[in-house]
């Protein structure tokens, strides 16, 4: 099936979503995704940051779709034409979504452990406005300990449901879901019952913000002062293959996470023993330093303000995405 995204054609399998087709092209035409997680079934469609415009439905039915669609849940049709960064409508809608996602977010990045590897932070940096128009008190929650290793800080949550799907699909005996509705809905383990199983730690990795944090790492260090190193060990848990990233500060392993790809998704889920209990270099076989994009703050305070590569070479994209281009080149 042939699909064209922002003027770039790509051949994909039938049943692929627009988002995954865009990821096959790569670069800056990939819509951001806060709630979609390719490893979790049924995820996506909730945060609406990945909205795109379908300007031509398919070869058979060339009518455009009337509304913007969530690219993570819309499958491609043969001959479909999609506009992401070339559509001012999409850019405008996305800006609105980012503002809305940040409405009740405490913006406590300076004291948040997720800062530096936070999807929402990246999203806000790339698409958000400098100031909010929201002048009211933000919703707050008490911090809750779920188990002895995980802390839930609901105030920061953007209700992406990723952790719910993780609890549902990766772990057994799920006691984890959503309570209440509307803007006071909250992730809960149902009366703070501990999430108690071997894979519960993965909810920390899937959380796009700092709502679920590793208590063994809380306030230990900033992410960008630590060095990620790939390592593995012979894990005897049948569901875990022991491939992890170790985060070093000096000689010390401060935390262990699963390996994350460029979209912030883990490659393989790991068990709690690997994550929480094995924090000595002697426990691991070191493979080498983890490659971190040079746009990330994790790569030692090195910010890269070069305009996005595809935009720079394509005059059509340059014109269409003028605002973004100016923001990038100004710095």
């Amino acid at each position, binding site marked *: 099936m042939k699909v064209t995204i922002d003027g770039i054609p790509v051949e994909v399998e039938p049943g692929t979503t627009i988002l995954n087709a865009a990821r096959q092209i790569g670069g800056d035409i990939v819509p951001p995704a806060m709630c979609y997680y390719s490893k979790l079934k049924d995820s*996506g*469609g*909730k*945060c*609406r940051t990945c*909205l795109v415009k379908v300007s031509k439905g398919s070869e058979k039915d060339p009518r455009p779709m009337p*509304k*913007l669609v*969530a690219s993570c*849940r819309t499958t491609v049709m043969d001959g479909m034409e999609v506009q992401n960064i070339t559509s001012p409508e999409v850019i405008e*809608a996305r800006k*609105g*979504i980012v*503002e*809305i*996602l940040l*409405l*009740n977010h405490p913006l406590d990045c300076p004291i948040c452990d997720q800062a530096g590897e936070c999807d929402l932070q990246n999203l806000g940096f790339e698409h958000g406005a400098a100031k909010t*128009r*929201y002048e*009211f008190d933000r919703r707050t929650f008490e911090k809750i300990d779920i188990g002895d290793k995980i802390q839930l800080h609901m105030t920061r949550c*953007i*209700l992406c*449901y990723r952790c719910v799907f993780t609890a549902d699909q990766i772990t057994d005996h799920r006691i984890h*879901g*959503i309570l*209440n*509705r*509307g*803007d*006071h*809905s909250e992730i809960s383990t149902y009366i703070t019952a501990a999430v108690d199983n071997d894979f519960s730690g993965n909810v920390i990795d899937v959380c796009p913000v700092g709502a679920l944090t590793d208590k063994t790492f809380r306030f230990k260090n900033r992410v960008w002062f630590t060095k990620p190193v790939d390592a593995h060990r012979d894990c005897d848990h049948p569901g875990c293959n022991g491939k992890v990233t170790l985060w070093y500060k000096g000689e010390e392993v401060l935390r262990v996470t699963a390996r994350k790809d460029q979209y912030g998704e883990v490659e393989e889920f790991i068990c709690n023993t690997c994550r929480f209990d094995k924090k000595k270099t002697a426990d691991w076989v070191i493979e080498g330093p983890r490659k971190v994009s040079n746009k990330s703050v994790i790569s030692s305070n090195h910010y890269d303000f070069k305009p996005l590569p595809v935009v720079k070479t394509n005059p059509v994209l340059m014109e269409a995405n003028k605002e973004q281009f100016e923001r990038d080149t100004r710095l």
Partner: protein
Amino acid sequence: MARKLLLEHINVPGINTFDVYRSKGGYASVEKALKTMSPDDIVEEVKKSGLRGRGGAGFPTGMKWSFLAKPEGVARYLVCNADESEPGTFKDRYLMTYIPHLLIEGMIVASFALGAKTSYIYVRGEMMPQIRILEKAIAEAKAKGFLGKNILGTGYDLELYVQPGGGAYICGEETALLESLEGKRGNPRIKPPFPAIAGLYGCPTVVNNVESIAAVVPIINDGADEYAKIGIGRSTGTKLISAGGNVKNPGVYEIDLGLPVEEFLYSDEFCGGIANGKRLKAVVAGGSSVPILPANLFLKTINNEPRLMSYESLADGGFVSGTMMGSGGFIAYDEDQCIVRNTWNFTRFYHHESCGQCSPCREGTGWMEKVLHRLEHGHGKLSDMDLLVDVSKKIEGNTICPLGDAAAWPVASAIRHFRDEFEWHVTNGAEAITRNFGLAHYADPLPKKEETVA
């Protein structure tokens, strides 16, 4: 007034019992449909009648039925959406309370047409009396052989269940309703797949409003052509309108579609005009989620033609100067009502009822509510109106289900038509708490359309 189709026998004592209902010609359509017609005939008949969904969107019911996937060996379901929770709408509750057998009769015919062996009536949790009434009516119908195994000896089996909801507005959205019916949290599903392909328990499902299903009964009894004669254009048949607000005679009325709104509002047969001799200021024509219109734009379209109670005429002028038929929750406001307060009230409802699944609606409704609260209590700013319009635009069309649109439209339309009242709430903040803005120019005749010389 032409013959009523749904509420013809509403004043007969004991019409809620099977025997009286039967003696008035009830269940004739079941006999006719099951004994003389094939399921496809019924679908064709409903298609020909031009019946449009009475729940709000106005999608042709026959078309919806013909979209139902019919794979071999998979059960199909018919679900009746009786989760009526739109502020201003109470027609389904009325119908279920007083003439429950009409709904059950319609359910049998519709289930037969769709080939459903199990059908559900999903009733809003707050309507406990209606649930009891329906359960009693089902038991009566079952005892007389109209439900259960081998109905009327035709070999068709149907089980009908009443399922109380939890009382959430969002469960009136068809996919959220199905989730709730399955026993899950009532979050709308992401479409596609549509319920006609994968609905209840992953099987093809049709979800119809109470009134749509009840309207199948006269269509089968009298024939589609008779039914299609009533009404105007693509709005055929009769519609239940639940009139409320400051009208003299609030209540549920069955009207022929195409009735002039002026007649509906002022004739003694229907609303009887505005109560206490006051003047009309504004109207919400079809339940809280449709755009609100000032009196002058409601009675006349922008081209100075009289507006009619029909899907097309109410929508004349689009969102700029029109509104929608919606679910038929007609609310009239007299000159002493405050539009800002009303808009705040509606938004408070949507804020409370948002399911919290997708972000624009979850956060945006709360934001709009807070801004409107500030405006209503005299602490607003002049920039708030633009802010509200902008926020409503960010919500509209960007959400999973139509609740986001429903929350955005009343705000956007109120500001579009009543902007001076909103501004007055800012400039005269202290005064706005003690008195209302009044009628102002909202009932003035519309200016003549300027002839443009080509």
